[in-house]
């Protein structure tokens, strides 16, 4: 008998009066929690391996199963919480870095929840978006410092010179980077097709672009990350924009590691690495040690695509994000993606995810302010991500200065993800973060596409409602308009960083 310190996180309550022993739960659980005993023809559950993904509960035809959080089993201690103790048990046993998935679940301040939006009353009329046109079309691009207009002989005006390439989005929401490898092909396909049908873009992440997804080239942002997986001329040509990934909100300063078992034939050919080998993304780009080096890569990529597409840079929100962003703009990036520290991941060391980086709200406000002060805000668009949970988060982000937002966790949740944070195990019961052929089938792209489109449509409608209520008929008028925001329960310092007034303060 070995000493077992691992404890069940969940309790599985099976109502025997309702259980019909149909074994659906047994077949659906990839963690072997449920078991059918032929002798007694009854199903029983061993909760030790339960991850709380609620797949069994969702598919049980009689509602016999309930997965509940197990009550605190340790003596109450404010300093030594159950999580701290359990982590130490796990670590002492494995001797390794604790891995986790999805965004941080720590109770740090969510600034979106401390921001309130404005509405029009008396002095300016609100607008009904169902009756009046409402513009939420968004452009992602670097704008020139000035434009020259030439008057032609016939009296008409013509723009002189070349306008930089841009992206045109029907809604200010893009699907953030998730690589093929960390998520299944069906998930990638759902994102790609939903983006294409909704007039927005998805991001391939760093894992290359599957050939079958070339048809969505016009709605693809391809990523060039430190591992350079799958990057070649063709990859760059099958995209609407290119993003250089420097960092990820959930794990700033940390590279990636896709274990060899997950590098199947399809993934190996997409990533352009041998089958079964570990796919290691180094922590830094080994050719980028300064803004000047970044500029070289940006222009090398721009050269490769003949200056036809925007090239952006994705960084995670860290302490000095404002000067870093300033450098990135000066290096020639057409857009900057800032990933906040609550941003998701397929696998990250828990200690990094929960302790490194800063919230995206503060990063966004300070970057936008800094770029405006320096007079270079127009040169790059800002896309922010890292836990955008609802349409109100989108509106608040835009009012704080973002051009558009990146969503990834929200998109996965729309497809069934229950945030069990076990993406790194590859056993995703919802068929999202897995390559197991038994599990990947569980996400039918037809359903995935429909649900993602539904989410984008719903959020777009809500954004229009909020704009209309504030008396604005174009999202362009809200962008960086912090007068539409008021803070609540925030300190003087937080308000000054966010650049907003406290609720109750008028002009």
């Amino acid at each position: 008998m070995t000493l077992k310190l691992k404890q069940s996180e969940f309790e599985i309550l099976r109502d025997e009066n309702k259980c019909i022993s149909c074994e659906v739960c047994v077949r659906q659980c990839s963690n072997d929690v449920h078991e059918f005993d032929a002798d007694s023809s009854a199903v029983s559950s061993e909760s030790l391996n339960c991850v709380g993904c609620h797949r069994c509960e969702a598919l049980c035809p009689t509602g016999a199963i309930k997965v509940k959080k197990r009550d605190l089993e340790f003596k109450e201690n404010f300093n030594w919480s159950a999580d701290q103790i359990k982590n130490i048990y796990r670590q002492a046993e494995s001797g390794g870095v604790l891995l986790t998935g999805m965004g941080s679940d720590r109770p740090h301040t969510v600034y979106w929840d401390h921001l309130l939006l404005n509405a029009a009353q008396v002095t300016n009329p609100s607008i009904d978006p169902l009756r009046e046109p409402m513009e939420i079309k968004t452009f992602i691009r670097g704008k020139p410092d000035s434009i020259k207009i030439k008057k032609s002989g016939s009296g008409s005006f013509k723009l002189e010179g070349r306008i930089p390439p841009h992206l045109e989005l029907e809604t200010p929401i893009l699907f953030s980077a998730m690589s093929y490898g960390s998520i299944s092909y069906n998930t990638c396909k759902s994102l790609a097709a939903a983006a294409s049908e909704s007039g927005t873009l998805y991001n391939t992440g760093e894992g290359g672009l599957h050939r079958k997804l070339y048809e969505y080239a016009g709605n693809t942002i391809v990523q060039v990350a430190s591992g350079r997986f799958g990057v070649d001329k063709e990859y760059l040509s099958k995209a609407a924009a290119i993003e250089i990934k420097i960092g990820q909100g959930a794990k700033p300063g940390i590279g990636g590691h896709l274990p060899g078992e997950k590098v199947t034939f399809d993934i190996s050919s997409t990533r352009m690495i041998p089958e079964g080998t570990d796919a290691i993304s180094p922590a830094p780009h080994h050719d980028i040690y300064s803004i000047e080096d970044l500029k070289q890569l940006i222009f090398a990529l721009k050269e490769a695509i003949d200056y036809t597409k925007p090239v952006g840079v994705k960084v995670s929100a860290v302490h000095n994000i404002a000067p870093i962003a300033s450098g990135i703009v000066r290096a020639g990036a057409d857009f900057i993606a800032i990933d906040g520290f609550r941003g998701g991941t397929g696998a990250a060391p828990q200690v990094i995810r929960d302790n490194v980086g800063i919230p995206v709200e503060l990063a966004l406000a300070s970057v936008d302010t800094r770029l405006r002060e320096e007079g270079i805000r127009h040169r790059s668009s800002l896309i922010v991500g890292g836990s955008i949970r609802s349409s109100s988060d989108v509106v608040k982000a835009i009012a704080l200065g973002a051009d558009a937002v990146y969503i990834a966790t929200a998109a996965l949740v729309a497809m069934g993800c229950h945030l069990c944070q076990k993406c790194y195990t590859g056993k995703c019961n919802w068929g999202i973060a897995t390559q197991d052929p038994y599990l990947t089938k569980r996400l039918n792209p037809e359903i995935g596409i429909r649900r993602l489109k539904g989410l984008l449509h719903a959020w777009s409608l809500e954004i229009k409602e909020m704009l209309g209520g504030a008396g604005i008929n174009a999202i362009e008028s809200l962008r960086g308009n912090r007068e539409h925001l008021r803070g609540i329960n925030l300190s003087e310092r937080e308000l000054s960083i966010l650049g907003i007034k406290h609720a109750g303060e008028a002009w």
Partner: protein
Amino acid sequence: MLEKHGREGRYCLKRIYINEEYCIGCRLCEIYCQVKHSKSKKILKAFKKELPDMISRVLVEEIGCNSFAIQCRHCSDAPCVEACISGAMTKNPNTGVVNCDEEKCVGCWSCIMVCPYGVIKRDLSAKKAASKCDLCFDEEIPVCVKNCPNEALKYLDIKIKKD
């Protein structure tokens, strides 16, 4: 004939199509089919009281990670109709639906032997009749299709092959 086999006053020109790529092998189709063809039509009552007598008319076939749910294909040249000795198995000339009249069925099970898909089963409770998919004629959508969580079964208009 139409009233019996077709959907109230409508021609039944729809069939169940299998999308095996997305069958997740949960067998919920089988469970709901059993309930639909049970006496009580209630899932708990049916499974608690009628279990040994309940037959699913849809079958999930599984090899490794590949699986699909199959039920009567309502073949255009249905061999079961040819083989039936009592005239119980008939093909509706208007709708093409193959149906087994359980009153007429004598339980010789010739149909089971000739069915190329193995989707006709013995109905042991009735001791003689053969049990097969009736496309849930009194439902808008067959229950197996309606309850498939991954839309691996679809109820669509008959695909007409063009020569």
